[in-house]
């Protein structure tokens, strides 16, 4: 019995050592001779709550790096991605950034969510290494809320939250000829409220009136009272900025009550659950803003979609496209800078104008946000169909 215990202990000790050794093994990959490669940090969510965002953006970024290397690299050097999983935790994103900076990366792609980018931001700022966020849409990612100053080393390739509201208002007023709209927004998130505010501003500027603003909160499932009221107001457009968990039952109930007016929304709608919960029929005549559409007929997008499908055997979503664009804009910056230096790269990125990305032409403004177009998607019998591309 006693011998048995000792053996068990020995096995355990060996096991622990083997894990430790395996853990260390990962660290030796950085011993490349410096000079002929440019290291790019990829700090993304590969596990945890937003793993699907991170995984797709990583796939897009790696596709871009592979294509660039095949075409001879940048400045005569090959790009070398160093990929790390931040587990969808802001603290983890920060310590990974610190480790990546230690490995002399020229820039970091990711993280995906605004919260994780905020975790990573102080390290990047302190070490003067640019961070390119593919999809962090909160306004304060690139601008300090308190001082109003732009965060020098933080860039992004996605449009920011308020812009989507503006976009949908333009679409409602110009393409749908709507004049009387009702806003029914997710009142428990800054996201929903911000979008509603900018929708109202642009819609009224275009000569429309907002008949009423109603609100729901996260986890609400019954919307019929407010919807009955909205039906009585007889609007010709209903704007519902929110996430799919609430929006899908909301639209279903609206159609059950006999509301036929077009319903507009935002990128929070982009989920397969929309169709499975609300149903094909209820979703007809509803539209939402998004970063890009894989159905875009633009030759550059078609080429990207084909290459992505060939490599990963799946349809590239908006995150994949944004990950791809993040790498491409960094490469453009490196070319403009003329050398692989983080500070010069930052200066070059600030001057980028009319960069042709998959998610639209973009120019970086003084707050490090891209000025770019967005797309409007329409649900047709359960399929997302690209309706139009709207310039800012």
């Amino acid at each position, binding site marked *: 019995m006693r011998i048995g215990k000792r053996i068990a202990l020995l096995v355990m000790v060996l096991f622990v050592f083997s894990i430790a050794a395996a853990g260390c093994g990962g660290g030796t990959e950085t011993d490349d001779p410096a000079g002929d490669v440019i290291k790019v940090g990829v700090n993304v969510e590969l596990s945890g709550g937003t793993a699907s965002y991170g995984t797709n953006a990583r796939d897009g970024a790696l596709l871009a790096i592979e294509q660039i290397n095949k075409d001879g690299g940048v400045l005569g050097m090959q790009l070398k991605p160093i990929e790390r999983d931040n587990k969808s935790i802001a603290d983890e994103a920060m310590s990974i950034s610190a480790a990546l900076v230690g490995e002399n990366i020229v820039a970091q792609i990711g993280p995906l969510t605004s919260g994780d980018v905020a975790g990573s931001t102080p390290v990047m700022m302190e070490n003067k290494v640019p961070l390119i966020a593919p999809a962090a849409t909160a306004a304060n990612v690139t601008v300090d809320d308190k001082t109003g100053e732009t965060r020098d080393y933080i860039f992004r390739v996605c449009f920011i939250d308020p812009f989507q509201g503006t976009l949908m208002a333009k679409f409602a007023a110009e393409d749908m000829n709507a004049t009387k709209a009702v806003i029914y927004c997710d009142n428990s998130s800054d996201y929903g409220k911000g979008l509603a505010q900018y929708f109202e501003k642009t819609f009224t500027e275009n000569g429309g009136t907002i008949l009423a603003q109603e609100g729901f909160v996260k986890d609400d499932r019954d919307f019929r009272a407010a919807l009955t*009221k909205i039906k009585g107001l007889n609007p010709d457009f209903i704007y519902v900025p929110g996430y799919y968990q609430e929006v899908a039952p909301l639209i279903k109930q609206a159609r059950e009550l006999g509301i036929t007016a077009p319903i507009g929304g935002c990128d929070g709608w982009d989920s397969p659950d929309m169709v499975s919960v609300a149903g094909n029929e209820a979703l007809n005549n509803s539209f939402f803003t998004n970063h890009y559409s894989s159905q875009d007929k633009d030759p550059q997008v078609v080429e990207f979609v084909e290459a992505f499908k060939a490599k990963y055997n799946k349809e590239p979503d908006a995150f994949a496209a944004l990950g791809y664009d993040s790498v491409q804009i960094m490469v453009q910056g490196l070319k403009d800078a003329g050398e692989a230096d983080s500070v010069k790269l930052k200066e070059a990125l600030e001057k980028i104008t009319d960069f042709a990305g998959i998610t639209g032409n973009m120019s970086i403004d003084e707050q490090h946000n891209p000025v770019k177009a967005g797309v409007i998607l329409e649900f047709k019998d359960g399929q997302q169909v690209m309706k139009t591309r709207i310039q800012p």
Partner: protein
Amino acid sequence: MLEFTQQIVNGLSLGAIYALIALGYTMVYGIIKLINFAHGDIMMVGALVSYFSLTLLGTNIFVAMAAAMIACAVFGVLIEKIAYRPLRNSTRIAALITAIGVSLFLEYFTIFIFGPAQKVFPASAFPIKAYALGGLSVLNKDVFVFVSAVVLMIILQYIIKWTKTGKAMRAVSLDQEAAVLMGISVDKTISITFAIGSALAAAAGVMLGIYYNTVNPLMGIIPGLKAFVAAVLGGIGIIPGAMVGGFVMGLLETMVSGYGNSLYRDAVAFGVLIFILLIKPSGIFGEDTGEKV
């Protein structure tokens, strides 16, 4: 006028769901004076059982509902045996805290096993039909939920008032020690109470699934809380009170959203609750019993 009638229909169908959940709350409280905070989560388990019965076994909705009710009855008895019985003679606050613990355990254990994502309740399980009555939209699921709530309440009232088990329940509720002396098995009676209460929760869970066609591990929290409020509003421990409390809550929320502003829905609904309780602390149906010295 048409809009008003529509809002009444909306309010009644929302209220029926609250009432159904409140029935189970109030019953358990009535017998052992425990606010079973896990009630909403048992409801979630019921919804999950029916979801798997529908999708994996391909049963129809009535079999799924029966399966959910039976599974939850067993489950409720188990919870009572494991978590509440050992604490029956300790302070009420200890039992209350345990109930919160059970609630959290159910929520996060379900997330651990099935993941946090919502599951889509198969729409084919209960095909929705709309009856248009002169511009009024009444759905068959509204009628279904309303009728079930009323029928279940009547059955419950019958069990408690007219059967031997019900008599035992009332006796245990009145005085546990005296009930034991009269030859009533307190353990058995409380087990039956939990079985019936949990089966009711399961029925409510299945209806929520039909109603909003999604099921997720945290779906019990908000309806559970509102139903608790409904039970208190009607007078906790009183069966018809739970029913009326549920409908009052449903109608109140609907009217505030419909004629006031949806942003103030919960604030007004809970404000009215506070107001009623200030005037009549024992709830609408509660009897004011003076504290005996």
